[in-house]
């Protein structure tokens, strides 16, 4: 069930340039059903900024009651969030959205997880789950540059992990698609989260495969009521999906990428 809770910050640290890992504790953790769900965060107790910020759940631990987010400090809201300290409480709504489908049928299957930049975080929780289900996750993580790389070790601990950077300062120079080509990575199912150009490239490249894409869109409510976050569906001009409540994960082809 969706809850609103003042979650306690139990740890908060900068893990790469402008990339923060934030762990909360609270009852909300027990409600999380799937990797790829997200929370809606009131970054500050002040009245401004007004709107919440959607951030994916990078990992949830129901037993410990913890939720970990990884986010990039960019605009006003995430800068305020970055200033919040351990011991403080943050007003969070969640879990929201449906997340990545993953069940027993994936046992023994090769699954490829492709993440770009701040699209990487939800793949971490997903990979842990896939591994637990007996699948064989392989990770392809794309970043801008060396200083923005994070969680490489954490992903390596779960499965084979490739890193690319746009400027080649670490890992393979290029995009995640370049890595997939270069290393001829094969898979049964692909899960991806990152810039829409990356998602589009993956969708076009693997039309025959089972591909799941996690999207971003500017949000109002985050719960499906305001229609801020819709995207088109192929072939029906009036049709739509809401990223917040129908997504943020969609099967490739279900929605028109460009939104």
């Amino acid at each position, binding site marked *: *069930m*969706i809850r*609103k809770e003042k979650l306690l910050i139990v740890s908060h640290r900068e893990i790469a340039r402008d990339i923060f890992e934030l762990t909360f504790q609270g009852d909300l953790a027990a409600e999380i059903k799937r990797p790829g769900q997200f929370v809606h965060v*009131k970054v500050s107790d002040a*009245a*401004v*900024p*007004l*709107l*919440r910020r959607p951030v994916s759940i990078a990992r949830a631990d129901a037993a410990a009651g913890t939720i970990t987010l990884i986010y990039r400090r960019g605009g006003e*809201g995430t800068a305020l969030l970055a200033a919040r300290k351990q011991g403080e409480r943050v007003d969070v*709504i969640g879990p929201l959205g449906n997340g990545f489908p993953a069940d027993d049928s994936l046992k023994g299957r090769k699954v490829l997880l492709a993440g770009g930049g701040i699209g990487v975080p939800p793949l971490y929780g997903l990979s842990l789950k896939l591994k637990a289900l007996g699948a064989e996750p392989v990770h392809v993580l794309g970043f801008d540059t060396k200083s923005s790389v994070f969680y490489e070790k954490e992903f390596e601990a779960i499965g084979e992990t490739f890193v690319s950077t746009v400027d080649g300062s670490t890992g393979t120079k290029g995009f995640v698609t370049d890595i997939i080509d270069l290393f001829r990575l094969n898979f049964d199912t692909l899960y991806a989260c990152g810039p829409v150009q990356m998602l589009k490239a993956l969708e076009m490249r693997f039309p025959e495969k089972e591909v799941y894409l996690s999207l971003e*869109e*500017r*949000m*109002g*409510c*985050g*719960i*499906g*009521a*305001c*229609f*801020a*976050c*819709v*995207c*088109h569906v192929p072939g029906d*001009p*009036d*049709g*739509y999906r809401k990223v917040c*409540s129908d997504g943020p994960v969609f099967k490739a082809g279900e929605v028109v990428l460009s*939104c």
Partner: protein
Amino acid sequence: MLNIELPGLSLKNPVMPASGCFGFGKEFAGLYDLNRLGAIMIKAATPEARFGNETPRVAETPSGMLNAIGLQNPGLDKILAEELTALEQYDVPVIANIAGSRIEDYVRVAEEISAAPNTSALELNISCPNVKTGGIAFGTDPVMAGELTKAVKRVSSVPVYVKLSPNVTSITEIAMAVEQAGADGLTMINTLLGMRIDLRTGKPVLANKTGGLSGPAIKPVAIRMIHEVSRAVSIPIIGMGGIQSAEDVLEFLFAGASAAAVGTANFVNPFICLEIIDELPSVLKKYGYSHIRECIGRSHEDEAAYHYRT
């Protein structure tokens, strides 16, 4: 101490979600008991389904937000068949917000939706700033506003509230025109037309370029307009624009509103309507009132004249 009777609306309390900020209620039904609400203003209905504008559709502004949804809705038939029926299980008056491009659109939607068993009142959206043909022309011209109101009144089987646009030189003129034309009540204000530009691209943030400004930023404009209009008309007003707390509701009642709707604040806190309803009694008591009726129109010098009488 919270109940109030308005045309078509027997409200157990004066707090209701504003149109477009609550969908058709089903998302919030998962969060709390909708029976607690004074009423529900559902999302604008048009004759046919509309996708609305392209995204981005929202942008944040200081103490406010811009939206340019563009009246996306599943169309009259689906709303009747799926959305309204789903709300029948609740003991809450439904106010159906209707929009269109031409008088015929409004008339068709009004006739059919007002006949639904749980529609208690209509809210005529003549003020959507986000679609070229979304009624804004009706909202800025007193003659057209009056004509539309008359046409809808003729077919509606429930009382008709007209939702006023703040983007006008004289909102009182429009208010008087629709009262004259038979409106049973007013709802105000809709959003102020605004824009934000993305500094990186140099282009408007919203795909639609302009959007409607809502939230606390516009509260002083709403209060001013309700204060002014409530002096000029004798039909009740449901006030909205930036309400975030029980204190804000009180301010709207003082200004001259008889009930209050909460829009944007539902996004900040989906439980806000409930919290406001829970806090209203103690806030009323704090300021020395024992019933919301005592607050209505209190800001006017000749207070008594501005109490809407039920």
